[in-house]
């Protein structure tokens, strides 16, 4: 990685020198075993770094073959035809060896070498991103381009000033820095828009590419917003691995962000985590569980499903769970025409759920507090490392129903607080469509936005997510996907064209991302902050605020 950065820096120097004279740096050439040489030309005769083809969808230019150019780099093309000048931006999507020779030139000895160095080069293919023009008053405006730059318009690596407009279209939830190739543009943060969050977000990456790191950075930015009461949505994270709260394997967690602890509320089933003053014991009241919460969990036979649907008709009130388990309750169901074995299976399942989910209580419930905090725009972390997968799905389904019901109610009354975003880890389990999917999440994906409820689907297999559901997602954060089918599924469903980024997505390194969201004009390459570094920065931010704590009291002297 360090070597890559070094090489990229070398190339930066060379790019700067491209003004009618092309010189290859001694270090760069030494790497490829050639003597340094300088080719002096007059400006109009230099063929490198000039647009030579092709059309409005694709620009081509050539660079010396020893030049270091990377996929994903953004270049600027200055077109002098327009009175005030126009700058086109394009992203490199492909690199090819090319030459002015026909046929198998590269194996034929010409003179004392294989080739004439000035006849071979690299062809760079770039995808147009848009065009920046100066408007009356000197203000710059970026828009999609409806034309092509003039032939031979000069190309150079986009400078931070030319990318500065991106800073203005970024949102309020910072997740990283703009990346140009493998070089970071430190001055330009990449930030998602709060307003887009109820339009659903997907985070896609294969294992080890930094999903958890991204989510922690995202949540930390949300905590920061919530602490200053500027957040526009609440974020629910159900963490089955126990890694978000205090981190794991040497990483830090969300509660290490002391500066913005006010922005998070945590519920846990883990006794070690419960010792922290900010962590509440997770409880769910028995009376909050409805038959449909049980229904989503198992593969029921049609008869069992029918019996479950009848439960709310047969038993009145909130005590159905206990009533059904009594012999009188079973008799009532049998009297309704259901088979004894059917009722027995349902009863056994309920006992298993109650046994495995020890957070189910007769007395108290964390759910109203959770929803209140979401409505207030806080991050709500539910830490359940001690529970199995089925229990996790049960809890997630129960929480989602409670949240959606409350948001629907408050939306109808016109008194709804802030929107919310429900995070689902391994989302392919519940958004796959057909068998194995959970109708509840599908309905949130389809209609949640009407009530201010969005989904944040995290998965390493987007190919398993229903295509129509995925097309409801307006924000994609892609952290590297090796499987072609996964990439194709995303390209088919994204709101912005990702097809040209296929190779770049394939070659993303850990921590690098492509962020595609509606309010940013094109999918932007980003380097996601390393959470531990971001945490340190946020903890240092500003003063501790307020009057400064005195820490108890000592009486004044008599």
């Amino acid at each position, binding site marked *: 990685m360090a070597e890559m950065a070094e090489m990229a820096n070398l190339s930066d120097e060379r790019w700067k020198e491209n003004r009618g004279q092309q010189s290859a740096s001694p270090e760069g050439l030494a790497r490829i075993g050639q003597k340094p040489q300088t080719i002096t030309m007059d400006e109009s005769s230099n063929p490198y770094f000039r647009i030579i083809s092709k059309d409005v969808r694709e620009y081509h230019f050539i660079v010396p073959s020893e030049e270091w150019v990377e996929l994903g780099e953004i270049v600027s093309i200055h077109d002098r035809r327009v009175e005030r000048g126009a700058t086109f931006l394009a992203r490199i999507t492909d690199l090819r060896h090319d030459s002015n020779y026909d046929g198998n030139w590269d194996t034929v000895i010409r003179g004392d070498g294989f080739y004439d160095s000035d006849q071979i080069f690299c062809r760079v293919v770039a995808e147009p991103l848009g065009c920046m023009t100066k408007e009356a008053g000197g203000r710059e405006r970026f828009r999609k381009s409806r034309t092509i730059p003039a032939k031979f318009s000069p190309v150079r690596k986009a400078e931070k000033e030319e990318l500065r407009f991106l800073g203005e279209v970024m949102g309020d939830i910072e997740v990283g820095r703009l990346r140009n190739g493998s070089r970071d543009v430190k001055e330009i943060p990449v930030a998602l828009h709060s307003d887009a969050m109820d339009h659903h977000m997907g985070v896609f990456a294969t294992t080890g590419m930094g999903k958890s790191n991204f989510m922690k950075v995202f949540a930390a930015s949300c905590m920061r917003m919530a602490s200053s*009461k500027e957040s526009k949505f609440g974020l629910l994270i159900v963490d089955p691995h126990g890694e978000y709260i205090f981190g794991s394997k040497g990483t830090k967690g969300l509660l290490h962000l002391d500066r913005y*602890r*006010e922005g998070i*509320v*945590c519920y846990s089933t883990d*006794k070690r985590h*419960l*010792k*922290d*003053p*900010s*962590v*509440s*014991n997770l409880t769910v009241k028995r009376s909050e569980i409805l038959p449909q919460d049980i229904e989503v969990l198992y593969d029921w036979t049609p008869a069992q499903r029918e019996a479950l649907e009848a439960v709310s008709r047969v038993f009145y009130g909130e005590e159905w769970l206990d009533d059904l388990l009594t012999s009188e309750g079973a008799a009532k169901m049998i009297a309704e025409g259901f088979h004894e074995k059917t009722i027995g299976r349902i009863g056994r399942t309920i006992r298993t759920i109650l046994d495995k989910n020890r957070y189910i*209580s007769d*007395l*108290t419930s*964390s759910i*109203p*507090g959770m929803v*209140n905090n979401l409505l207030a725009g806080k991050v709500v972390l539910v830490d359940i490392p001690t529970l199995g997968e089925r229990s996790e799905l049960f809890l997630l389904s129960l929480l989602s129903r409670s949240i959606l019901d409350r948001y629907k109610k408050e939306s109808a009354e016109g008194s709804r607080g802030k929107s919310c975003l429900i995070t689902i880890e391994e989302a392919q389990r519940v958004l796959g469509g057909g068998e194995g999917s959970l109708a509840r999440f599908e309905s949130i994906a389809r209609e949640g936005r009407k009530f201010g409820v969005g989904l944040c689907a995290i998965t390493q297999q987007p190919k398993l997510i229903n295509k129509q559901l995925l097309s409801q997602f307006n924000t994609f954060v892609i952290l590297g996907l090796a499987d072609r089918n996964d990439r194709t599924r995303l390209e088919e469903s994204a709101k912005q064209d990702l097809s040209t980024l296929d190779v770049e997505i394939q070659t993303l390194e850990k921590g690098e991302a492509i962020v595609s969201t509606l309010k940013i004009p094109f999918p932007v390459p980003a380097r996601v902050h390393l959470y531990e570094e971001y945490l340190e920065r946020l903890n240092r931010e500003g003063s501790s605020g*307020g*009057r400064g*704590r*005195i*820490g*108890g*009291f*000592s*009486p*004044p002297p008599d």
Partner: protein
Amino acid sequence: MKIVHMADSHLGFSAYGRVDRWGRNLREEMVYQGFSKTVDKIIDLAPDAVVHAGDVFHHVRPRIRPLYVFQQNLERLVEAGIPVVIISGNHDAPKSYASLSPFTLFEGMEGVHIAHHYRYEPFEVGETTFHTIPFCLGPEDYLEEFRKMQEGRAETSGGKDVLVMHGLVEALWDRRLRTVGEHQLKESFLKSDFSYIALGHYHGQAQVAKNGWYSGSVEYFRFNEAKDEKGFLYVDLDTDPGSVKQIKIQDEYMIDLEPIDCIGLSSREVEGLIGSVCDDLGLKDKIVRLRLSEISREAYRSLSRRLLGELRGEALHIEIIPEFSDEPAPRETEPMESRDLPQEFRKFIEGEAAGEAIPAAIRDGVLAYGTGLLARISEKRATERFDAAQ
């Protein structure tokens, strides 16, 4: 070990202007009598300790009478050999470090442990540790004090642990009293590994966790408490969780009557209904509220003054509230938290500025000056004296 958990005595509370033959406020005397009655009952029960979870006094600078009543009763408990643990609450804790707490007078009494220094203090009574966090000046201070306590707890083991705090837990926040210094207690403070959590501030008896209770007040203070049973809690810490018995001290003397539907009724008919309701109830020494729903202004104006005077003479206090048919029900609006003022001001200015009411040239200056000023004001409000009115 058995403990008594009580809270919110509010000694010194007075109301209604009715006095006894010595000129003492009747309502105030009732509160003192209730407190003495409570101590009688505690001495009868002979618990191993008494916990008072805040707001012993109604005022931060109580007069001599409430101080005297408190001292007398405290001495009775001490003489009976019952250790007492007390924390200050939002009513009786000074809101400035410069003021002296009334509890300073009682420091050093044998068997009496009082936490009123805005910080966590542990007190050991037998094998039980009482972890007390009294009223703190800023809501954020509780977290820090709780953290200190958890660190202390991690170093000790064995014995029973009782947490004592004053404030309103998140789950009851919609029932807040909107009094000065009312702080929210995080749900995360209700740790299940305490033997018992004794809370004060909320005047009803309520269980908020498997091991956490509000004892409620011994007296009725507001009409929304009228349906509550008033008394204290008797807790056996030797069971898990502590078994809790509610001990009733007061009869229901505060009555919030069902509204009388007065649609189309004349004043005589309304008088008849009022008389009948009050006769059934028996007004003597009671505090009563009666709403006349949908009454016409004419009928209300014509109600017999003599009848109303008689009712007022009989009851300790009676409130007859007309809800006129031509008047919309009053809307409750959410009071603004002083710490939110700078943010609110920013929103207001941004709204005004969008309408160009404030010229762009001075907008930033106005915003910076205003938010700075409001931040300073809310800062002062948080630390200077703004205690309950005497």
